[in-house]
């Protein structure tokens, strides 16, 4: 990469002037004349047969235009799509509205279309549904037990799919072990809670034969293709627009029933329709994340060397698959080696149907689970062998010279220096002194805990079809238009992508416009997820800009009448070697060739280029997080005293944005560790259906985070960037849990399942007179 001026600079965002004035435009702000409003009746039962639906009274309410039910539309809209999965995958039919049976609370049953939202919601109350309850299974472990109620009667049991990965000689590893450390771990269900709930507006213009769908989505192009298929329309008649999107975290990386339903209603009624998800609907009917219960076994030598690891896990996928549901649990298996050399690893996944909302990709998507497993196990091993947690980590790290490093799970880590990130984090946190403080305070009855997480994750999705599209064009005015298929939802790509292009072409950032999120303007794309936007989408743009520069060189050579080898390029200007005054900027070239009629045939008169970049491998960002907590046994309260994070995401385009991603990520991981859990009772009723019951972190829940970086570029792409969208979330959860468990070591605690609520901790401390070395794991 050439010497740059803007890449690596802390530049404030170009997105912000609109947003800070309240002039952003989210889906709910899209207001079209003559719009009808949609409200959805959702199941109050977790599992029931629908005997009848009476919509007569609702239809008669003034202002109601129509009411539709599942039976009426099932032949008009194809079921919801599922991607990925192996040959064992079972896909139950997932209709847009339930037809004769409901399988989870919140499943859509009927939709009211009315003149305004208040009327539509009034009408919901008038729809009478006669249910016949069926036995419910909400616990994933119970769902696997023979004799459990079966949710989808097409199959004999609740297994959604199974997968198995085994590499290395596990038998030998477990035979050679001095000790086998086991632990049961629960990754509770989480709700993504983007502050903007989902929303859809759909409009059909019969004059243009075009259906336009505005959706709060991370993947407008994928959504367009799926909607076309579901509604049996040619793709060129469907346009999807993702306007400003108010956070996603994976929850908007999907194709939802409401998106297809609204598109259908717009076509049917020939009027614009709008649906804005309420928060209660959002917790009931937007995907959840995590939801795994596993048993881990680690075979270790006395010195802390890990010889082998087995993980047997049950993944709770809910009642149906959503778009990427089958792809998430296998990611956990893929990353189970963490940043350690483990010669033999075996993973068995059993994914099960339960009477709950689907799980799917939520920030980290399978990697937080893997990191939690391995990082908790490292601490458990250290505890069992009476070794320091730092020593066990260092013992098992690969050396920086061993990269690309192949794991026993079958991936090749691109580049890394785990020792450097660890030592930097230990130094910043004052680790040695912290241990001394801990000892001193314990003697005073105060419980300080120090927790580490040395994580590695998999990013930049990726090879094998997950390309991204970019286009760069220098317009005749000299202004530059950049198109990207990576449609952001807060990541700031209008800024970071402009930085990349400004550097490449030597033009001012103010002359560059980055366009995304409209399938009619950007011809193709995949989307923003899996920390891929910059490491794949940004690289596509970089490559397109590179092509534009080469085209400009040929044109400059023609216009200046010199060989292209005799041209220098710097600061956006081609000049003749030895005659620096004779030259043209890229912008001047664009202006001149626009009018040029007699260019040689081999020269393309448009200063434009596209690129569809697909990386050869994933990238593997890593780092060390150190968390220091104090636990108050009298109240069970956990106070975070200090948080140090040293992250390595390779080269950095904009440090300000990277800091933002890391901070937000850490706090989301903290939410899982301490507060958050989607709770269903044994009847499949959702007990955490509002933000009063589902606790997300608040500003006063944490101290100032202390951030630093190391920089190990990836060889996978020419910019050397790895991605940073999920690292914070992946790294933080185990660091916090390790810290709390460490604090409670004097109480004989070896493990607590998340979330580490005051109630759980208090109960545990109260039971301190009980024998020590007890593990408090949630038994169901």
């Amino acid at each position, binding site marked *: 990469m050439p010497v740059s001026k803007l890449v690596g600079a802390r530049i*404030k*965002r170009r997105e*912000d*002037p609109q*947003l*800070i*004035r*309240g*002039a*952003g*435009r*989210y889906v*709910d*702000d899209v*207001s079209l004349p003559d719009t009808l409003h949609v409200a959805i009746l959702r199941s109050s039962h977790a599992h029931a047969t629908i005997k009848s639906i009476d919509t007569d009274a609702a239809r008669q*309410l*003034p202002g109601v235009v129509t009411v539709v039910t599942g039976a009426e539309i099932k032949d008009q809209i194809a079921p919801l799509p599922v991607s990925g999965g192996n040959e064992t995958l079972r896909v139950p039919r997932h209709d847009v509205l339930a037809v004769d049976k409901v399988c989870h609370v919140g499943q859509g049953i009927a939709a009211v279309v009315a003149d305004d939202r*208040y009327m539509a919601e*009034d009408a919901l109350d*008038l729809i009478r549904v006669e249910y016949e309850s069926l036995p419910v299974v909400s616990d994933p472990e119970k769902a696997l037990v023979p004799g459990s109620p079966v949710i989808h009667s097409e199959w004999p049991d609740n297994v959604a799919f199974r997968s198995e990965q085994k590499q290395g000689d596990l038998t030998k590893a477990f035979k050679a072990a001095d000790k086998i450390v086991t632990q049961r771990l629960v990754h509770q269900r989480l709700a993504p*809670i*983007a*502050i*903007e*709930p989902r929303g859809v507006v759909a409009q059909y213009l019969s004059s243009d034969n075009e259906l336009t769908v505005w959706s709060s989505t991370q993947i407008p192009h994928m959504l367009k293709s799926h909607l076309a298929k579901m509604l049996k329309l040619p793709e060129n008649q469907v346009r999807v627009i993702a306007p*400003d*999107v*108010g*956070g996603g*975290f994976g929850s908007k990386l999907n194709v939802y029933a409401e998106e297809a339903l609204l598109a259908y209603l717009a076509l049917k009624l020939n009027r614009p329709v709008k649906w*804005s998800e*309420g*928060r*209660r609907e959002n917790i009931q009917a937007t995907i959840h994340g995590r939801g795994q219960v596993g048993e881990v076994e680690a075979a270790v030598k006395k010195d802390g060397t890990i010889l082998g690891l087995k993980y047997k896990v049950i993944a709770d996928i809910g009642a149906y698959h959503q778009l990427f549901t089958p792809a998430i649990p296998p990611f956990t298996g893929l990353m189970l080696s963490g940043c350690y050399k483990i010669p033999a690893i075996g993973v068995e996944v059993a994914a099960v149907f339960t009477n709950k909302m689907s799980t799917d990709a939520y920030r980290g998507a399978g990697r937080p689970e893997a990191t939690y497993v391995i990082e908790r196990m490292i601490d458990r091993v250290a505890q069992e062998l009476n070794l320091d947690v730092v020593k066990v980590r260092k013992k098992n790290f690969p050396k920086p010279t061993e990269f690309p490093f192949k794991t026993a799970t079958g991936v090749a880590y691109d580049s890394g220096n785990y020792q450097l990130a660890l030592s930097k984090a230990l130094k910043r946190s004052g680790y040695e002194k912290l241990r001394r403080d801990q000892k001193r305070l314990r003697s005073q009855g105060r419980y300080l805990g120090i927790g580490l997480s040395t994580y590695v994750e998999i990013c930049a999705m990726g090879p094998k079809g997950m390309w991204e599209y970019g286009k760069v064009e220098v317009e005749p005015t000299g202004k530059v238009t950049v198109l990207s298929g990576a449609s952001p*939802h*807060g*990541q*700031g790509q209008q800024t970071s992508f402009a930085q990349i292009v400004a550097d490449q072409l030597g033009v001012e950032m103010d002359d560059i416009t980055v366009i995304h999120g409209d399938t009619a303007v950007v011809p193709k794309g995949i989307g923003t997820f899996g920390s891929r936007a910059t490491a794949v989408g940004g690289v596509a743009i970089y490559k397109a800009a590179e092509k534009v520069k080469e085209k400009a060189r040929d044109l400059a050579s023609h216009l200046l009448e010199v060989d292209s080898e005799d041209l220098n390029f710097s600061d956006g200007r081609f000049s003749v070697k030895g005659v620096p005054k004779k030259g043209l900027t890229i912008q001047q070239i664009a202006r001149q060739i626009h009018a040029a009629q007699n260019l040689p045939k081999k020269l393309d008169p448009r200063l434009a280029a596209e690129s569809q970049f697909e990386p050869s491998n994933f990238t593997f960002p890593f780092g060390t997080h150190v968390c220091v907590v104090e636990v108050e046994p009298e109240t069970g309260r956990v106070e975070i005293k200090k948080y140090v994070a040293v992250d390595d995401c390779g080269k950095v385009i904009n440090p*300000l*944005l990277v*800091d*933002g991603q890391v*901070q*937000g*990520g*850490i*706090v*989301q991981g903290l939410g899982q560790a301490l507060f958050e859990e989607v709770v269903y009772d044994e009847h499949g009723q959702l007990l955490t259906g*509002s*933000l*009063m019951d589902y606790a*997300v*972190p*608040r*500003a*006063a829940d*944490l101290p*100032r*985070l202390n951030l630093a970086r190391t920089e190990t570029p990836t060889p996978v792409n020419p910019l050397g960037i790895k991605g940073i969208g999920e690292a*914070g979330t992946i790294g933080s959860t185990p660091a916090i849990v390790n810290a709390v468990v460490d604090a409670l070591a004097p109480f004989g605690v070896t493990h607590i399942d998340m979330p580490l609520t005051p109630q759980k901790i208090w109960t545990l401390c109260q039971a301190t007179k009980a024998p020590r070395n007890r593990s408090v794991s949630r038994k169901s």
Partner: protein
Amino acid sequence: MDAVAKKRVSIKVNGVEHSHQVEPRLLLVHFLRDVLGLTGTHIGCETSICGACTVMLDDTAVKSCTVLAVQADGADVMTIEGLAQGEKLHPLQEAFWECHGLQCGFCTPGMILTAHQLLMRNPKPTENEIRHALDGNLCRCTGYQHIVDAVQLATKKMSRNVAGSRQKTKGNRHR
């Protein structure tokens, strides 16, 4: 469900008087967004928890998703659209921009107005006071640190402005 008679409300919003017939059950946030077209005020939870819908009602920050439009009859409301002076951003807006205090931007209008309320009451808050004042506003993107930085920066900007305008006044007096 019988239709309930509409009621006329007169509400001053961002300095402009508006008078409309509304259903008694219409929420203030829907009045602002759907009747007046001021979509800068966002709806995130409809239960007063997330704070995305925060507006100033007679100089008090309220969550407009749980205030009825009829309750605001005769009141003076300021939304995020009313904070800047024309092209000139409010110091809080400048600071949110400079400190990268927003990512998706959805919580931002409510967050800025809550911070505005804090600074009206306490022009020099400590970090702890800022964090507690923002406790009723959820942000899922930033982890709050850059928001706290922004409020601290705005505090400095505003005290400079106050000092600046005092000096100016003094100068005028001398003349």
